[in-house]
């Protein structure tokens, strides 16, 4: 190494070494040798000191604080980029949605917005089928219990629940914090209303057949609701940091 520096004693070579030192291409030992060599060339030494001073000053340039509302302005401009409502509806209806049925993944809390949405829409679809069966099939049953007004309303309740769950599913597709929050509240409301429905059937009908509703329609609905509540709670945790 000594030999390298000795060769570089010529002014031109020293300048080359200075450049390499500033570009951090020299080892600390090589740099020390350069400094030593520069002692014999005062003009170059002054230049070297000056260049070193400039690099340290450039590093000390203060960081300027961006405007406090910068994030808000960026997000507002991004929101303004949103396509028109009809475009979003068309995309929702026509574009394929990447989703899967994976209950383990849903329970572990890593389900995406589109997966949660899928589960809600499927639950809604279940209630739609139940509602239609009840609507067209309930009249075929005879008996006193059909006279109870609340029992006769069950098909409608199932259909309203179906719409409610589908709407929540579509809302979750927005994949945002607000959607998660609304879906949480909606799921709790859904479970609560189903339980109230079960109590109402039991109190108004007051005969053993009401238990069929309690254990099939209502029971399945509550279990589905608990599953939906679990996945939407996990999904909402993604937004805790926001």
């Amino acid at each position, binding site marked *: 190494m000594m030999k390298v520096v000795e060769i570089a004693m010529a002014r031109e070579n020293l300048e080359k070494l200075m*450049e390499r030192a*500033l*570009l*951090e291409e020299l080892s600390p030992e090589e740099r020390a040798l350069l400094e030593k060599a520069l002692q014999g060339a005062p003009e170059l030494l002054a*230049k070297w000191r*000056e*260049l070193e*001073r*400039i*690099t340290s*000053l*450039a*590093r*000390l*340039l*203060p*960081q*300027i*604080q*961006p*405007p406090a509302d*910068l*994030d808000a*302005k*960026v*997000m507002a*401009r*991004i*929101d303004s*980029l949103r396509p028109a409502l009809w475009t979003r509806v068309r995309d929702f209806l026509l574009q394929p949605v990447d989703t899967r049925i994976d209950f383990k993944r849903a329970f572990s809390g890593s389900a*995406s*917005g*589109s997966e949660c949405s899928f589960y809600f829409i499927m639950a809604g679809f279940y209630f739609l089928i139940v509602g239609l069966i009840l609507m067209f099939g309930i009249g075929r049953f005879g008996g006193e219990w059909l006279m109870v007004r609340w029992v006769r309303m069950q098909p409608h309740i199932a259909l309203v629940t179906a719409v409610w769950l589908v709407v929540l599913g579509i809302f979750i*597709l*927005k*994949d*945002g*914090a607000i959607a998660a929050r609304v879906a949480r509240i909606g799921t709790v409301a859904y479970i609560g209303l189903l339980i109230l429905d079960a109590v109402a059937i039991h109190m108004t009908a007051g005969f053993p057949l009401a238990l069929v509703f309690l254990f099939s329609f209502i029971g399945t609905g509550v279990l589905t609701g608990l599953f939906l509540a679990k996945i939407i709670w996990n999904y909402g945790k*993604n*937004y805790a*940091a*926001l």
Partner: protein
Amino acid sequence: MDWKEQDEIISRVLKGDRNAYTLVVNRYKGPIFNLAYRMTGSYHDADDLTQETFLKAYVALGKFQRDRKFFTWLYTISLNLIRNHLRGAKPVSEPMESLCSSEPTNDFENPEGSAIRGEEIKLLNICMRRLPPDVREAVVLRFHQGLSFEDVAAVSGCSLSGAKMKVYRGLEKLRLLMDETIRERRSP
């Protein structure tokens, strides 16, 4: 924000989660704003260019290659916008000197030294504004933003040796400009 977390956030944004993008903005707004500010010398322009950078990155996020560093990709977008801005820009309306006078220095222990250093930083700022934009960006990226030469090259779109050459040329030019400015000030 580590690589994995960043990748996850990008995935969420790509799936339509706009709110997740605030994490990206929050993480990078400082460096991007400072780059724009150091390049334009205008707080207002830096604000506009930073917003534009994040907007453009949001729109182009689908094209981002996950094997690349996100911040170099973001810096490249920012730098392209800054270059375009500087091409058509009128001279900065806010005098750099007045902005710099309020910039703090870190020398708290020695007020006198702090004042001298403050003057030197002010002078350096003025001289940096007189550097050609391509050289100025290399110096800012290397020293103010603390990027490695490899990253400076990746962001600027030049070779490693090209990036090093620009940085050295910038330092040499700054030395001459600072020297010249000091002499001008001293002469009656």
